[in-house]
Each structure stands twice: as C-alpha cells, then as structure tokens.
C-alpha cells in the first residue's frame, strides 16, 4: 500500500539499511557477550573457535557454556521485540507491552507451577517449561480480554490497560503465595527468574525455546498486512476486507506464545516489548513489514547487551538482565509518556 504513495521504495531501502546496520550491531554484541565472563576469550579467538580452531578449553567454554546461553538470549530478545510490536498494533496503543498488560504475571504463575511439580530444571522436562508459561500467559490474556470486552464497543483500550494492571496484581499474589511455599533453593531460583534473569544455559533450554520462535515468528512476519490494517482502526480494517475479530485473536495468540516462551527461558523481563517497537518505529516508520523485523533485531541487541552487562559488571553476584533493562527502559517509557498526548 505504501508503494502507491510513492515513498514506499525509499522506505524499503531505508528499512533494509537499518536492518543491515542492526544485524551488524547484533553480531558485535553477540561476540562481545561470548568473550565476556570469568574466563575471557579475545574476540578473534572466539571467531576462530567458532569456525573450528582454538584450544580444547576454549572449545568447551564456548560450546558448552556461552553459546547455548547466547542462543537463548538471541531467541528471547527477538521473541519479546516481535511480541511487543504485535501487541501495540493490536491494541492500537503505543504504550502496550506484554509485561505491562499482565501476560508476564501469568507466565510467572506457570513457571512457579512448573517448579513446584518438576524440581529438575535441567533434565528433559525443561522442554515443558515454555508450555507451562504459555498456559499461564493464555490464562492471563483470556482474563484480560474478557474483562475489557464490551458488547457494543469490542475491546475497550482503557479497560485493557486497567484490567491488565489488576490481573497482573492478582496473579502475582497467587505466584507469591506459591513461591513462599517452595524450598529455599527453588525460591531463590524463582526470585531471580521473576527479576528477569536469563537462566537457560544448556542446549536443552535453547532447544526448548527454538521451535516456539521458529514457528511463530515467521507466522507473525507473514501477517504484516493484517497488522497494518488493524492498526488503522477496526472500521477501516473491516472496510479493506480484514476479518477483524479472527485476525486479532490469532495475532494475540501469537504474541502470547512469543512472549511467554521467551520469558520462560529469559525470565520476566519487561520493557523490551515496549521499547523495541518504539525504537523501530522511530527508525523505519509505522509499516509493519519494516517495523517488525527491526523490532526483533532491536530486541536482540537490548537483551544480549543487558545480559552481558548484568553478568560482567556485577561480579560475583550477576544482576538479572531484567533489572538492567528496567533501569534503562522505565525512564525511557516515562519520558515517552510525558510527551504523548
């Protein structure tokens, strides 16, 4: 559609450029993330090891410890960025975010249920973790949609935000109730998870997260046309020929799947879903075919950087990436809030 406006081609070129630059930045932060830690490996040796060279010790450190964690971080960052962009398009609210809307509180409840039933987090049961957090996220989403639905007006945006806040508090109370009954170690894990700590560090965790992102992300990327239409408003979208209700439901499900699966391995990280689409919109404009991939890449850059900072600057007790993101992200959000009408 934008092509007919004449500016489409320049925009597409710009979007490609931005994507390239961001991919370059992602590559740099990933290599930096791989080289940082208690055992430092120089960037060139990282590259060398990745392509088969390097000493045996480098090999073990990199392939057994650093790489799976980085894969988890990259997948989760992309998932959270995309989920935020989709949520903002669906709700036509630039301040919408899976965390703010209470989906993470549902995912947290799912995680606490998981650790209460399966104590072993590293075994093959780990594959089930995204399923549990997804179930929690769906419960939260259903509650929020039911509560903000009006027979005449559909989903009322203001109610969406208010019920999100309420549902998040309620689910958090249940989560707190359960987590206080856990033993000390499991409790410590849950506390870190809630603060947004990337804990997935084995290949099994990367494998558990991978299918969710690999299946849902391309689906969302293929739906950029509906997202464009939906963000124009229900009536316009219906006029163009989008089946508003069905598309909204499918895309909401996709956003819940992406964010719940991402937080299952990367902890309850808020604000990435909020900031990444915002930055993307500033960089490439509001068209979803440009915005969505850029939001994914921005999400990757933010999460990998935050995790690396949290791990390396605050030795020996690593600070969860979620705290790093919130300390940078919340002020940015408040700044946006103070400027939007």
């Amino acid at each position: 559609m934008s092509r007919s406006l004449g500016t489409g081609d320049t925009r597409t070129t710009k979007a490609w450029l931005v994507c390239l630059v961001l991919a370059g930045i992602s590559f740099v932060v990933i290599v930096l993330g791989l080289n940082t830690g208690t055992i430092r490996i120089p960037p060139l040796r990282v590259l060398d090891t990745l392509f088969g060279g390097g000493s045996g010790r480098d090999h073990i450190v990199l392939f057994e410890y650093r790489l799976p964690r980085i894969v988890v971080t990259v997948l989760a960052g992309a998932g959270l960025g995309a989920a935020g962009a989709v949520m903002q398009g669906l709700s036509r609210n630039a301040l919408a975010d899976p965390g703010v809307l209470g989906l993470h509180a549902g995912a947290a409840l799912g995680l606490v249920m998981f650790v209460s039933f399966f104590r072993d987090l590293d075994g093959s049961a780990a594959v089930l973790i995204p399923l549990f957090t997804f179930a929690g996220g769906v419960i939260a989403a259903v509650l929020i949609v039911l509560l903000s639905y009006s027979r005449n007006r559909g989903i009322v945006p203001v109610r969406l935000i208010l019920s999100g806040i309420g549902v998040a508090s309620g689910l958090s109370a249940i989560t707190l109730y359960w987590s206080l009954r856990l033993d000390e170690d499991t409790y410590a894990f849950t506390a870190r998870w809630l603060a947004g700590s990337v804990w997935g560090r084995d290949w099994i965790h990367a494998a558990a997260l991978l299918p969710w992102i690999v299946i849902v992300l391309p689906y969302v990327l293929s739906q950029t046309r509906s997202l464009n239409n939906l963000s124009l408003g229900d009536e316009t979208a219906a006029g163009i020929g989008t089946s508003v209700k069905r598309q909204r439901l499918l895309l909401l499900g996709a956003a819940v799947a992406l964010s719940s699966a991402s937080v299952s391995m990367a902890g309850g990280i808020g604000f990435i879903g909020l900031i990444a689409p915002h930055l993307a919109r500033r960089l490439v404009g509001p068209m979803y075919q440009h915005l969505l991939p850029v939001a994914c890449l921005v999400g990757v850059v933010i999460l990998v950087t935050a995790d690396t900072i949290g791990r390396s600057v605050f030795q020996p007790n690593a600070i969860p990436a979620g705290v790093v993101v919130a300390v940078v992200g919340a002020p940015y959000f408040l700044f946006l809030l103070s400027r939007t009408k």
Partner: protein
Amino acid sequence: MTAPPVLRAGRIRQALLFTASAVLLALAIFAAISLGAKDLTVSTVWSAVFHYDRSLMTHQIIHELRLPRVLGAAVIGAALAVAGSLIQGITRNPLGDTGVLGINAGAMFVVAVSFAFFPNLPYGTLIVLSFLGALMSTLLVFGLGASAPGGLTPMRLTVSGAVTAALLGSMTSGIAIYFDLSQDLAFWYAGGVAGIKWSQLEILAPILLMVIAWSMGLARSISLISMGDEVALNLGLNLRRIRLLGLLTVVVLAGLSVSAAGAIGFVGLVIPHIARKLIGVDYRQIVPLSALLGAVLLVLADLGARMANPPEELAIGIMVSFIGVPFFLFLARKERRDL
C-alpha cells in the same frame, strides 16, 4: 436553625454507621487477640490487657505478641485507607491508591537499600528514610504526569505510577539478589504486621493517629476539590496548596505504613469505595469511616493470614489481594470514560 428532616435522617444514618463500624472494629480486635495458635478465653484477654501480670505465660503471649501486632494492624489499616481516600479525592481518580501509584514502591526501594548497606539502622531512622523514598516516587509520578501536554489525566497518572512501581520494584529485587537478601525481603515485601513490636508501635501509632486526625481537618477542602476545579476555585480555595498538603499527608501515611509492614496493596483502593457507597460524597465523613473500616479489614486479614494454615502464616498482602483484586477489576470493568 433546625435541619430539614431529610438531613436529620441522614445524620442518624451516619451516626449509626459510625457506631456500627466502631463496634465492628472492637469485635475484630478482640477476636484477633483471643484467637490464634493458643486460643484464649475472654476473661484471660481482659485481665491481660487491663491487669497485666508478667509472671503468667498467657498474659505474656497477649501482651508481647498479639497486642502490638493487632494494634499495629489496626493503625496501619486505618492509615492506608485514609491515604487512599485522600488520593482518590485529590486526583478525582476512583482507581487511585498508594500501591497503584508507585508511592509504596519508593518506600520499599529505600528500605531495601538501607537493608543492604546499613543493616543495623534504628527504627526511627528507617521511618524517616522510607518517608523520603515515598516522597521521591510521589514527586516523580506526579511531576511526570503534570509535565505532559494535556496535564495530569487520571489515565496518565495510573500508567506512570504503574511504570514507576515496576522500575523501583525491579531495582529493589536487583538489590535483594545482589546482596543475598531475597528471602528476608520477600517476607517483608509480602506485607505483614507479625513483626511489629511495642518499641515500633510507640513511635508509629502516635504519628499515624495524629496525621489521620490532620487528614480529617483537610477533608472539607478535599470534598470541594473532588467536585471539580471550578467549584473549588469559585469558593476561593487555594487548589495548589490543598493538593500539596494532601499529597504530603498521603506520603507520610504510606511511607510509615510501608516501613512497618511492607507493601500491603489494595486497602487504600477498596475501603474508600465502600465508605463512599455507604455514606455519600462528603470527605468529612468518608475519611473517618475509611479509617475505621481500613482498620477492620487489616485486623481481619491478619487474623485470616494466621488462621488459614497454622502453624504457618500466609502473607497478609496475599490475603488482602485476594479480596482487593476482584474488586479493582470490577471497578475497571465499570469504567466508561476514556480516562
């Protein structure tokens, strides 16, 4: 001048409501003192309170454990409810609450910082610090809301409060994790009056009661503000001054409550609503009735938290959330305006 019959009937109703709430509070306090791991008879409780005998074990339980705890719950419940009613009046936002608006989170953050860096601070200092924390987050939330184009809308206030709460909460848990305070802080987070001792109550209760009394003095002006800026201005009210005084009062009440009992959400949201339903729109009645009902709610919630699963205790914040959240959602659902 004799009041018209309608008003007189209203007065009788008001007097009845206040008497009933006071009786309810007395009963709740009495029940909370006598029920527990060791059930005590009425006469034992009576003599323990009024003729304390240090040599008797039952008297000691009542005097050293239950009494400060129950009285603490009552005072803090009253303070939270009054803070909520003032906030709702000042901002004309029916969803206003010190927890939702991030005021509690500021106090919690400062308490976490002092736990981490100065673990042995005396209680008096902790109170001052948590007050400063509450003040800091209040200034942040209201400053940001007011600086935006279009001014301080209730919606903007709610969102900036929620985000500020998330930011401070996140930094609090970061500190807790970095300094290995997680479990200490978690129980305190969850909110509880279990740990309140006489030495704390002696500082806390007089200040809170005085500030609550002061709030009742503010109530007339708050009523006028709640009717709209124009009404208040026409009556010659200094809006800015009243808002500032009201907010400062809220900050003192919230900061002190959090320093003593952690973050107990939703008391400040639910109680003023119930009070308004019962007694009408005049804050001169809403504020004192909120104080009484807030005290009742927290005393009962604490009792429930103790009795739910003995010998373990449920966190009181969870107990209050289970009552408060459905109510909040019910109100949010009824919200018709685009805030």
